[in-house]
Protein backbone atom coordinates (compact mmCIF):
# COMPACT_ATOMS: atom_id res chain seq x y z
CA UNK A 1 0.00 0.00 0.00
CA UNK A 2 1.39 3.38 -0.95
CA UNK A 3 2.01 5.48 2.14
CA UNK A 4 4.00 8.38 0.70
CA UNK A 5 3.25 9.61 -2.80
CA UNK A 6 5.58 12.19 -4.24
CA UNK A 7 3.66 13.41 -7.22
CA UNK A 8 5.57 15.27 -9.92
CA UNK A 9 7.33 17.49 -7.37
CA UNK A 10 9.66 20.33 -8.34
CA UNK A 11 11.21 22.95 -6.10
CA UNK A 12 13.22 26.03 -6.98
CA UNK A 13 15.09 28.49 -4.77
CA UNK A 14 16.46 31.96 -5.08
CA UNK A 15 16.20 34.76 -7.56
CA UNK A 16 16.50 33.98 -10.44
CA UNK A 17 14.99 30.63 -9.44
CA UNK A 18 17.37 27.70 -9.53
CA UNK A 19 15.67 24.34 -9.76
CA UNK A 20 16.87 21.91 -7.10
CA UNK A 21 14.43 19.06 -7.64
CA UNK A 22 12.90 18.50 -11.05
CA UNK A 23 9.68 16.51 -11.45
CA UNK A 24 10.32 13.85 -8.86
CA UNK A 25 7.79 11.01 -8.92
CA UNK A 26 7.98 8.38 -6.20
CA UNK A 27 5.71 5.92 -4.47
CA UNK A 28 6.79 4.62 -1.11
CA UNK A 29 5.02 1.68 0.48
CA UNK A 30 4.33 1.18 4.14
CA UNK A 31 7.17 -0.65 5.89
CA UNK A 32 9.88 0.16 3.36
CA UNK A 33 13.33 1.33 4.42
CA UNK A 34 14.23 3.92 1.81
CA UNK A 35 17.73 5.35 1.56
CA UNK A 36 18.03 8.59 -0.36
CA UNK A 37 21.54 9.11 -1.64
CA UNK A 38 23.31 11.63 -3.82
CA UNK A 39 26.09 14.14 -3.79
CA UNK A 40 26.18 17.27 -1.68
CA UNK A 41 23.68 19.78 -3.01
CA UNK A 42 21.63 17.27 -5.00
CA UNK A 43 18.54 18.08 -2.96
CA UNK A 44 18.16 14.86 -0.99
CA UNK A 45 17.65 16.76 2.25
CA UNK A 46 15.23 19.08 0.46
CA UNK A 47 13.17 16.08 -0.61
CA UNK A 48 13.15 14.89 3.00
CA UNK A 49 11.97 18.31 4.18
CA UNK A 50 9.18 18.20 1.61
CA UNK A 51 7.96 14.95 3.10
CA UNK A 52 8.43 16.45 6.54
CA UNK A 53 6.25 19.41 5.56
CA UNK A 54 8.71 22.07 6.68
CA UNK A 55 9.03 23.12 3.02
CA UNK A 56 6.46 23.28 0.26
CA UNK A 57 7.05 22.24 -3.35
CA UNK A 58 6.93 24.88 -6.10
CA UNK A 59 5.03 22.37 -8.20
CA UNK A 60 3.39 19.01 -7.54
CA UNK A 61 2.16 17.47 -4.31
CA UNK A 62 3.43 15.30 -1.50
CA UNK A 63 0.68 13.01 -0.23
CA UNK A 64 0.95 11.06 2.97
CA UNK A 65 -1.69 8.41 3.26
CA UNK A 66 -3.63 10.29 0.57
CA UNK A 67 -3.51 13.66 2.35
CA UNK A 68 -1.33 16.72 1.95
CA UNK A 69 0.40 17.85 5.17
CA UNK A 70 1.41 21.47 5.02
CA UNK A 71 3.43 21.42 8.23
CA UNK A 72 5.35 18.94 10.37
CA UNK A 73 3.14 16.87 12.65
CA UNK A 74 3.19 13.67 14.65
CA UNK A 75 2.62 11.34 11.67
CA UNK A 76 6.26 11.78 10.77
CA UNK A 77 9.08 11.44 13.27
CA UNK A 78 12.30 13.35 12.62
CA UNK A 79 15.93 12.75 13.52
CA UNK A 80 18.26 15.45 12.16
CA UNK A 81 22.05 15.29 12.15
CA UNK A 82 22.46 17.99 14.81
CA UNK A 83 20.32 19.65 17.48
CA UNK A 84 18.15 16.57 17.65
CA UNK A 85 17.60 16.75 21.42
CA UNK A 86 16.26 19.53 23.62
CA UNK A 87 19.31 20.72 25.56
CA UNK A 88 17.25 21.88 28.56
CA UNK A 89 15.66 18.49 29.21
CA UNK A 90 17.17 15.37 30.70
CA UNK A 91 17.42 12.22 28.60
CA UNK A 92 14.27 10.85 30.22
CA UNK A 93 12.31 14.06 29.74
CA UNK A 94 13.49 14.23 26.14
CA UNK A 95 12.14 10.76 25.47
CA UNK A 96 8.81 11.35 27.18
CA UNK A 97 8.35 14.88 25.78
CA UNK A 98 6.42 13.70 22.72
CA UNK A 99 3.86 11.76 24.75
CA UNK A 100 3.50 14.52 27.33
CA UNK A 101 3.08 17.30 24.82
CA UNK A 102 0.56 15.43 22.69
CA UNK A 103 -1.65 14.58 25.66
CA UNK A 104 -1.23 17.59 27.95
CA UNK A 105 -1.24 21.28 27.14
CA UNK A 106 0.51 23.76 29.41
CA UNK A 107 -2.51 23.89 31.75
CA UNK A 108 -2.80 20.12 31.65
CA UNK A 109 0.53 19.96 33.48
CA UNK A 110 -1.27 21.16 36.59
CA UNK A 111 -3.76 18.30 36.73
CA UNK A 112 -3.13 15.23 38.91
CA UNK A 113 -3.78 12.96 35.93
CA UNK A 114 -0.60 14.31 34.35
CA UNK A 115 1.57 12.85 37.11
CA UNK A 116 -0.17 9.53 36.82
CA UNK A 117 0.37 9.42 33.04
CA UNK A 118 3.92 10.69 33.37
CA UNK A 119 4.81 7.67 35.48
CA UNK A 120 3.51 5.44 32.67
CA UNK A 121 5.42 7.39 30.03
CA UNK A 122 8.56 7.09 32.10
CA UNK A 123 8.19 3.35 32.47
CA UNK A 124 7.83 3.14 28.70
CA UNK A 125 10.83 5.44 28.22
CA UNK A 126 13.00 3.21 30.43
CA UNK A 127 12.04 0.34 28.14
CA UNK A 128 13.28 2.28 25.12
CA UNK A 129 16.36 3.37 27.03
CA UNK A 130 17.38 -0.25 27.53
CA UNK A 131 16.63 -1.11 23.91
CA UNK A 132 18.90 1.63 22.61
CA UNK A 133 21.65 0.44 24.90
CA UNK A 134 21.70 3.15 27.57
CA UNK A 135 21.67 2.49 31.30
CA UNK A 136 19.17 3.85 33.80
CA UNK A 137 21.84 6.13 35.22
CA UNK A 138 21.95 7.94 31.86
CA UNK A 139 18.30 8.94 32.25
CA UNK A 140 19.08 11.93 34.46
CA UNK A 141 21.87 13.27 32.25
CA UNK A 142 21.52 16.26 29.97
CA UNK A 143 22.20 15.83 26.23
CA UNK A 144 25.55 17.59 26.24
CA UNK A 145 26.83 15.12 28.83
CA UNK A 146 26.38 12.34 26.26
CA UNK A 147 28.57 11.43 23.30
CA UNK A 148 27.30 12.15 19.78
CA UNK A 149 26.33 8.53 19.24
CA UNK A 150 24.42 8.36 22.52
CA UNK A 151 22.60 11.57 21.66
CA UNK A 152 21.43 10.12 18.35
CA UNK A 153 20.30 6.94 20.10
CA UNK A 154 18.18 9.03 22.47
CA UNK A 155 16.87 11.07 19.53
CA UNK A 156 15.70 7.87 17.82
CA UNK A 157 13.98 6.69 21.00
CA UNK A 158 12.40 10.12 21.39
CA UNK A 159 11.02 9.99 17.85
CA UNK A 160 9.75 6.41 18.20
CA UNK A 161 7.95 7.04 21.52
CA UNK A 162 5.02 8.70 19.76
CA UNK A 163 4.84 5.78 17.30
CA UNK A 164 5.00 7.74 14.06
CA UNK A 165 4.14 5.83 10.86
CA UNK A 166 7.10 7.42 9.10
CA UNK A 167 10.55 8.12 10.48
CA UNK A 168 12.62 10.70 8.63
CA UNK A 169 16.35 10.69 9.28
CA UNK A 170 18.55 13.38 7.78
CA UNK A 171 22.23 12.35 7.78
CA UNK A 172 21.49 11.11 11.27
CA UNK A 173 24.75 9.15 11.60
CA UNK A 174 27.01 11.32 9.45
CA UNK A 175 28.72 13.09 12.33
CA UNK A 176 29.60 9.85 14.12
CA UNK A 177 32.87 7.93 14.06
CA UNK A 178 32.88 4.68 12.03
CA UNK A 179 32.69 2.31 15.00
CA UNK A 180 29.74 4.10 16.60
CA UNK A 181 28.14 4.38 13.20
CA UNK A 182 28.15 0.61 12.66
CA UNK A 183 26.40 0.08 15.98
CA UNK A 184 23.81 2.72 15.16
CA UNK A 185 23.12 1.12 11.79
CA UNK A 186 22.46 -2.25 13.41
CA UNK A 187 20.23 -0.55 16.00
CA UNK A 188 18.06 1.27 13.48
CA UNK A 189 17.73 -1.91 11.36
CA UNK A 190 16.59 -3.77 14.45
CA UNK A 191 14.12 -1.07 15.49
CA UNK A 192 12.78 -0.87 11.95
CA UNK A 193 12.13 -4.65 11.94
CA UNK A 194 10.47 -4.53 15.37
CA UNK A 195 8.25 -1.52 14.81
CA UNK A 196 7.43 -1.79 11.13
CA UNK A 197 7.85 1.96 10.76
CA UNK A 198 8.48 3.28 7.26
CA UNK A 199 11.93 4.88 7.26
CA UNK A 200 13.23 7.54 4.91
CA UNK A 201 16.97 7.84 5.49
CA UNK A 202 19.11 10.49 3.82
CA UNK A 203 22.83 9.78 3.58
CA UNK A 204 25.75 10.49 1.27
CA UNK A 205 27.40 7.21 2.16
CA UNK A 206 26.53 4.52 -0.47
CA UNK A 207 27.79 1.73 1.73
CA UNK A 208 25.51 2.78 4.55
CA UNK A 209 22.58 3.08 2.13
CA UNK A 210 23.09 -0.46 0.82
CA UNK A 211 23.49 -1.91 4.29
CA UNK A 212 20.38 -0.22 5.70
CA UNK A 213 17.87 0.15 2.93
CA UNK A 214 15.41 -2.17 1.30
CA UNK A 215 15.40 0.34 -1.51
CA UNK A 216 18.01 2.90 -2.53
CA UNK A 217 17.06 6.00 -4.49
CA UNK A 218 19.85 7.98 -6.14
CA UNK A 219 19.24 11.63 -6.91
CA UNK A 220 21.52 13.24 -9.50
CA UNK A 221 21.62 16.15 -11.89
CA UNK A 222 21.73 15.36 -15.59
CA UNK A 223 23.41 18.67 -16.32
CA UNK A 224 24.59 21.34 -13.87
CA UNK A 225 21.78 23.74 -14.89
CA UNK A 226 18.97 21.26 -14.30
CA UNK A 227 17.48 20.13 -11.03
CA UNK A 228 18.05 16.64 -9.69
CA UNK A 229 15.97 13.72 -10.85
CA UNK A 230 15.73 10.14 -9.74
CA UNK A 231 18.79 8.63 -11.42
CA UNK A 232 18.29 5.16 -10.02
CA UNK A 233 15.62 3.41 -7.99
CA UNK A 234 17.11 0.16 -6.77
CA UNK A 235 15.50 -2.59 -4.75
CA UNK A 236 18.33 -3.92 -2.60
CA UNK A 237 18.71 -7.70 -2.90
CA UNK A 238 17.81 -9.54 0.29
CA UNK A 239 21.13 -11.31 0.70
CA UNK A 240 23.88 -9.23 -0.68
CA UNK A 241 27.40 -10.74 -0.60
CA UNK A 242 30.49 -8.64 -0.01
CA UNK A 243 31.54 -8.75 -3.63
CA UNK A 244 28.10 -7.85 -4.91
CA UNK A 245 27.84 -5.06 -2.37
CA UNK A 246 31.16 -3.62 -3.49
CA UNK A 247 30.04 -3.70 -7.10
CA UNK A 248 26.71 -2.06 -6.23
CA UNK A 249 28.43 0.62 -4.19
CA UNK A 250 30.67 1.39 -7.14
CA UNK A 251 27.70 1.52 -9.48
CA UNK A 252 25.74 3.84 -7.19
CA UNK A 253 28.73 6.13 -6.84
CA UNK A 254 29.22 6.43 -10.59
CA UNK A 255 25.54 7.16 -11.13
CA UNK A 256 25.42 9.80 -8.43
CA UNK A 257 28.55 11.45 -9.84
CA UNK A 258 26.74 11.77 -13.15
CA UNK A 259 27.16 9.90 -16.43
CA UNK A 260 29.12 12.70 -18.10
CA UNK A 261 31.97 12.43 -15.63
CA UNK A 262 31.91 8.66 -15.83
CA UNK A 263 32.42 8.65 -19.57
CA UNK A 264 35.32 11.02 -19.20
CA UNK A 265 36.87 8.87 -16.50
CA UNK A 266 36.50 5.50 -18.21
CA UNK A 267 39.18 5.84 -20.93
CA UNK A 268 41.71 7.00 -18.42
CA UNK A 269 41.30 3.75 -16.47
CA UNK A 270 41.51 1.43 -19.48
Amino acid sequence: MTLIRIDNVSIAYGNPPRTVLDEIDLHIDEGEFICLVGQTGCGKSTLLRLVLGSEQPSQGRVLIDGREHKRPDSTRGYVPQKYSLFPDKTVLDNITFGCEVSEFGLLGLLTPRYYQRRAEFRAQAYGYLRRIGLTESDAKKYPDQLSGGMQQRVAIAQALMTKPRILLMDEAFSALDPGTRKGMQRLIRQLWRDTGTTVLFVTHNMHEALFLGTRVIVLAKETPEHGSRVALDLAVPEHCGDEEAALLTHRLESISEGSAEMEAATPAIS
Partner: protein
Amino acid sequence: MATAFLQIHSKPSRISTLTISYFLFAAGIAAYFYTAAQRHRDNPEERVTPTLQQMAQGFYDAALKPAEEDADLADNATLSQRIFGSMLWKDTKATSRRFALSMLLLLPAVILGMHMGLFPYVGVFFLRFVLFFDKIVALSLLPILFIAFGIDELSKIMLIVIGVTPTIILDAFNLTKGVPPEQVVKAFTLGANDFDVAYRVVLKQIWPRVLNSIRLNLKAVMLFLFAGEMIASTDGLAYRIALLRRHMGMDVIIPYVLWVALLLFLVDLAMRMANRWLHPWFREA
Protein backbone atom coordinates in the same frame (compact mmCIF):
# COMPACT_ATOMS: atom_id res chain seq x y z
CA MET B 1 60.04 33.85 34.90
CA ALA B 2 61.27 37.31 34.08
CA THR B 3 61.19 36.54 30.38
CA ALA B 4 57.79 34.87 30.56
CA PHE B 5 56.22 37.93 32.23
CA LEU B 6 53.84 39.88 29.96
CA GLN B 7 53.74 37.21 27.30
CA ILE B 8 50.64 35.59 25.86
CA HIS B 9 51.82 32.25 27.16
CA SER B 10 52.63 33.35 30.67
CA LYS B 11 50.66 31.64 33.44
CA PRO B 12 50.22 33.74 36.57
CA SER B 13 50.40 31.64 39.75
CA ARG B 14 47.58 31.72 42.30
CA ILE B 15 49.45 34.05 44.58
CA SER B 16 50.40 36.51 41.86
CA THR B 17 46.84 36.43 40.50
CA LEU B 18 45.54 37.36 43.92
CA THR B 19 48.02 40.15 44.54
CA ILE B 20 48.01 41.58 41.03
CA SER B 21 44.23 41.64 40.70
CA TYR B 22 43.84 43.65 43.93
CA PHE B 23 46.63 46.06 43.11
CA LEU B 24 44.41 48.71 41.51
CA PHE B 25 41.99 48.60 44.45
CA ALA B 26 44.83 49.19 46.87
CA ALA B 27 46.38 51.89 44.70
CA GLY B 28 43.05 53.70 44.32
CA ILE B 29 42.32 53.64 48.04
CA ALA B 30 45.85 54.74 48.89
CA ALA B 31 45.75 57.59 46.37
CA TYR B 32 42.43 58.78 47.79
CA PHE B 33 43.51 58.85 51.39
CA TYR B 34 46.84 60.43 50.53
CA THR B 35 45.02 63.23 48.69
CA ALA B 36 42.48 63.53 51.49
CA ALA B 37 45.17 63.78 54.16
CA GLN B 38 47.04 66.39 52.16
CA ARG B 39 43.97 68.53 51.54
CA HIS B 40 42.96 68.35 55.19
CA ARG B 41 46.43 69.51 56.21
CA ASP B 42 46.06 72.54 53.93
CA ASN B 43 42.48 73.27 54.96
CA PRO B 44 40.92 71.67 58.07
CA GLU B 45 37.43 72.63 56.83
CA GLU B 46 37.89 70.61 53.62
CA ARG B 47 34.63 68.90 52.48
CA VAL B 48 35.38 67.42 49.05
CA THR B 49 37.58 64.56 50.25
CA PRO B 50 36.29 63.38 53.64
CA THR B 51 38.58 61.26 55.79
CA LEU B 52 37.78 57.69 56.76
CA GLN B 53 36.43 58.80 60.14
CA GLN B 54 34.16 61.37 58.55
CA MET B 55 32.80 58.82 56.07
CA ALA B 56 32.32 56.24 58.83
CA GLN B 57 30.45 58.84 60.87
CA GLY B 58 28.41 59.82 57.81
CA PHE B 59 27.49 56.24 57.03
CA TYR B 60 26.73 55.53 60.69
CA ASP B 61 24.38 58.51 60.79
CA ALA B 62 22.76 57.50 57.52
CA ALA B 63 22.22 53.94 58.64
CA LEU B 64 20.95 54.68 62.16
CA LYS B 65 19.38 58.14 62.07
CA PRO B 66 16.27 59.32 60.26
CA ALA B 67 16.54 61.63 57.27
CA GLU B 68 16.50 65.38 57.82
CA GLU B 69 12.99 65.70 56.48
CA ASP B 70 11.68 63.06 58.91
CA ALA B 71 10.91 63.39 62.61
CA ASP B 72 13.63 62.33 65.06
CA LEU B 73 13.30 58.99 66.77
CA ALA B 74 12.78 58.70 70.49
CA ASP B 75 16.01 58.43 72.47
CA ASN B 76 15.14 54.96 73.78
CA ALA B 77 14.47 53.44 70.30
CA THR B 78 15.83 49.93 69.80
CA LEU B 79 18.50 49.13 67.21
CA SER B 80 16.04 47.63 64.74
CA GLN B 81 13.77 50.66 65.15
CA ARG B 82 16.77 52.82 64.42
CA ILE B 83 17.76 50.84 61.34
CA PHE B 84 14.27 50.68 59.86
CA GLY B 85 13.69 54.34 60.64
CA SER B 86 16.97 55.42 59.14
CA MET B 87 17.66 57.49 56.07
CA LEU B 88 19.64 54.73 54.37
CA TRP B 89 16.85 52.21 54.88
CA LYS B 90 14.21 54.64 53.62
CA ASP B 91 16.19 55.49 50.48
CA THR B 92 17.18 51.89 49.76
CA LYS B 93 13.59 50.76 50.14
CA ALA B 94 12.27 53.42 47.75
CA THR B 95 14.90 52.69 45.11
CA SER B 96 14.52 48.91 45.45
CA ARG B 97 10.77 49.18 44.97
CA ARG B 98 11.18 51.05 41.70
CA PHE B 99 13.95 48.69 40.64
CA ALA B 100 11.85 45.59 41.34
CA LEU B 101 8.85 47.03 39.49
CA SER B 102 10.94 47.78 36.43
CA MET B 103 12.46 44.31 36.49
CA LEU B 104 8.95 42.86 36.54
CA LEU B 105 8.05 44.95 33.52
CA LEU B 106 10.97 43.43 31.62
CA LEU B 107 9.17 40.08 31.68
CA PRO B 108 6.54 41.04 29.07
CA ALA B 109 9.42 42.38 26.96
CA VAL B 110 11.03 38.93 26.95
CA ILE B 111 7.73 37.27 26.02
CA LEU B 112 7.17 39.79 23.23
CA GLY B 113 10.67 39.33 21.83
CA MET B 114 10.23 35.55 21.89
CA HIS B 115 6.95 35.81 19.99
CA MET B 116 8.52 38.18 17.48
CA GLY B 117 11.29 35.71 16.80
CA LEU B 118 8.98 32.73 16.50
CA PHE B 119 5.83 34.01 14.79
CA PRO B 120 6.65 35.73 11.49
CA TYR B 121 3.60 38.02 11.53
CA VAL B 122 4.26 39.19 15.07
CA GLY B 123 7.85 39.84 14.02
CA VAL B 124 6.81 41.81 10.96
CA PHE B 125 4.32 43.81 13.01
CA PHE B 126 6.72 44.89 15.77
CA LEU B 127 10.31 44.63 14.53
CA ARG B 128 10.67 47.89 12.58
CA PHE B 129 8.93 49.85 15.27
CA VAL B 130 11.01 48.42 18.09
CA LEU B 131 14.22 49.00 16.11
CA PHE B 132 13.18 52.62 15.66
CA PHE B 133 12.11 52.96 19.27
CA ASP B 134 15.43 51.53 20.40
CA LYS B 135 17.24 54.48 18.82
CA ILE B 136 15.26 57.11 20.74
CA VAL B 137 17.35 58.49 23.58
CA ALA B 138 15.09 57.72 26.51
CA LEU B 139 16.30 60.65 28.61
CA SER B 140 15.28 63.06 25.87
CA LEU B 141 11.72 61.87 26.45
CA LEU B 142 11.84 62.80 30.12
CA PRO B 143 9.97 66.12 29.77
CA ILE B 144 7.26 64.38 27.79
CA LEU B 145 7.05 61.61 30.38
CA PHE B 146 6.65 64.11 33.19
CA ILE B 147 3.81 65.73 31.29
CA ALA B 148 2.18 62.45 30.30
CA PHE B 149 2.60 60.47 33.53
CA GLY B 150 3.10 63.15 36.15
CA ILE B 151 6.24 63.60 38.21
CA ASP B 152 5.67 60.73 40.61
CA GLU B 153 6.44 57.01 40.42
CA LEU B 154 4.91 56.18 37.08
CA SER B 155 7.07 58.51 35.02
CA LYS B 156 10.23 57.09 36.58
CA ILE B 157 9.18 53.51 35.92
CA MET B 158 8.21 54.46 32.38
CA LEU B 159 11.62 56.00 31.82
CA ILE B 160 13.27 52.70 32.70
CA VAL B 161 10.78 50.74 30.64
CA ILE B 162 11.28 52.93 27.60
CA GLY B 163 15.03 52.97 28.03
CA VAL B 164 15.64 49.28 28.60
CA THR B 165 12.77 47.24 27.14
CA PRO B 166 13.66 47.75 23.45
CA THR B 167 17.08 46.24 24.14
CA ILE B 168 15.56 43.31 26.00
CA ILE B 169 12.92 42.78 23.29
CA LEU B 170 15.58 42.76 20.56
CA ASP B 171 17.81 40.49 22.63
CA ALA B 172 15.04 37.98 23.22
CA PHE B 173 14.19 38.23 19.52
CA ASN B 174 17.75 37.46 18.47
CA LEU B 175 18.09 34.65 20.99
CA THR B 176 14.87 33.12 19.67
CA LYS B 177 16.16 33.40 16.12
CA GLY B 178 19.28 31.59 17.33
CA VAL B 179 17.34 28.49 18.37
CA PRO B 180 18.09 25.87 15.68
CA PRO B 181 15.07 25.33 13.39
CA GLU B 182 15.55 21.59 13.92
CA GLN B 183 14.32 22.05 17.47
CA VAL B 184 11.06 23.62 16.37
CA VAL B 185 10.48 21.00 13.66
CA LYS B 186 11.32 18.23 16.07
CA ALA B 187 8.80 19.54 18.61
CA PHE B 188 6.09 19.65 15.94
CA THR B 189 6.82 16.08 14.88
CA LEU B 190 6.42 15.05 18.51
CA GLY B 191 2.90 16.45 18.54
CA ALA B 192 3.47 19.92 19.99
CA ASN B 193 1.32 22.87 18.91
CA ASP B 194 2.51 26.45 18.40
CA PHE B 195 1.91 27.31 22.03
CA ASP B 196 3.89 24.31 23.27
CA VAL B 197 6.77 25.15 20.95
CA ALA B 198 6.85 28.73 22.20
CA TYR B 199 6.61 28.09 25.93
CA ARG B 200 7.87 24.54 26.45
CA VAL B 201 10.70 24.43 23.94
CA VAL B 202 11.91 27.87 22.88
CA LEU B 203 11.30 29.99 25.98
CA LYS B 204 12.85 27.36 28.25
CA GLN B 205 15.92 27.23 26.03
CA ILE B 206 16.52 30.95 25.74
CA TRP B 207 15.73 31.73 29.38
CA PRO B 208 19.27 31.41 30.80
CA ARG B 209 20.63 33.62 28.02
CA VAL B 210 17.83 36.11 28.59
CA LEU B 211 18.76 36.24 32.27
CA ASN B 212 22.35 36.94 31.30
CA SER B 213 21.21 39.67 28.98
CA ILE B 214 19.14 41.23 31.78
CA ARG B 215 22.21 41.03 34.00
CA LEU B 216 24.17 43.00 31.41
CA ASN B 217 21.39 45.57 31.32
CA LEU B 218 21.19 46.02 35.09
CA LYS B 219 23.53 48.95 34.70
CA ALA B 220 21.18 50.59 32.21
CA VAL B 221 18.18 50.01 34.50
CA MET B 222 20.02 51.71 37.36
CA LEU B 223 21.16 54.53 35.12
CA PHE B 224 17.63 55.43 34.11
CA LEU B 225 16.35 54.90 37.63
CA PHE B 226 18.97 57.29 39.02
CA ALA B 227 18.32 59.86 36.33
CA GLY B 228 14.62 59.83 37.20
CA GLU B 229 15.27 60.00 40.95
CA MET B 230 17.79 62.81 40.67
CA ILE B 231 15.48 64.98 38.60
CA ALA B 232 12.15 64.45 40.29
CA SER B 233 11.81 62.54 43.52
CA THR B 234 11.42 62.94 47.26
CA ASP B 235 13.23 59.79 48.28
CA GLY B 236 15.59 57.16 46.93
CA LEU B 237 19.35 56.69 46.90
CA ALA B 238 19.94 58.94 43.90
CA TYR B 239 17.65 61.63 45.32
CA ARG B 240 19.79 61.68 48.47
CA ILE B 241 23.00 61.90 46.49
CA ALA B 242 21.63 64.80 44.45
CA LEU B 243 20.35 66.51 47.60
CA LEU B 244 23.59 66.13 49.56
CA ARG B 245 25.60 67.37 46.60
CA ARG B 246 24.07 70.80 47.18
CA HIS B 247 25.81 71.14 50.54
CA MET B 248 28.86 69.08 49.65
CA GLY B 249 27.91 66.10 51.83
CA MET B 250 30.69 63.97 50.41
CA ASP B 251 30.99 62.08 53.72
CA VAL B 252 27.60 60.52 52.91
CA ILE B 253 27.77 60.55 49.12
CA ILE B 254 30.86 58.36 48.88
CA PRO B 255 29.48 55.64 51.19
CA TYR B 256 26.20 55.84 49.24
CA VAL B 257 27.99 55.29 45.94
CA LEU B 258 29.76 52.26 47.37
CA TRP B 259 26.51 51.00 48.90
CA VAL B 260 24.75 51.20 45.50
CA ALA B 261 27.64 49.36 43.84
CA LEU B 262 27.47 46.67 46.52
CA LEU B 263 23.71 46.26 46.11
CA LEU B 264 24.00 45.99 42.34
CA PHE B 265 26.82 43.49 42.69
CA LEU B 266 24.66 41.39 45.02
CA VAL B 267 21.68 41.49 42.63
CA ASP B 268 23.95 40.41 39.80
CA LEU B 269 25.46 37.65 41.91
CA ALA B 270 22.03 36.41 42.98
CA MET B 271 20.88 36.29 39.36
CA ARG B 272 24.01 34.43 38.32
CA MET B 273 23.58 31.87 41.11
CA ALA B 274 19.88 31.48 40.33
CA ASN B 275 20.71 30.97 36.68
CA ARG B 276 23.19 28.24 37.48
CA TRP B 277 20.86 26.60 39.94
CA LEU B 278 17.76 26.74 37.72
CA HIS B 279 19.51 25.72 34.51
CA PRO B 280 22.10 23.07 35.33
CA TRP B 281 22.18 22.12 31.63
CA PHE B 282 23.32 25.56 30.55
CA ARG B 283 27.00 25.98 29.69
CA GLU B 284 28.10 29.52 29.19
CA ALA B 285 29.73 29.82 25.81
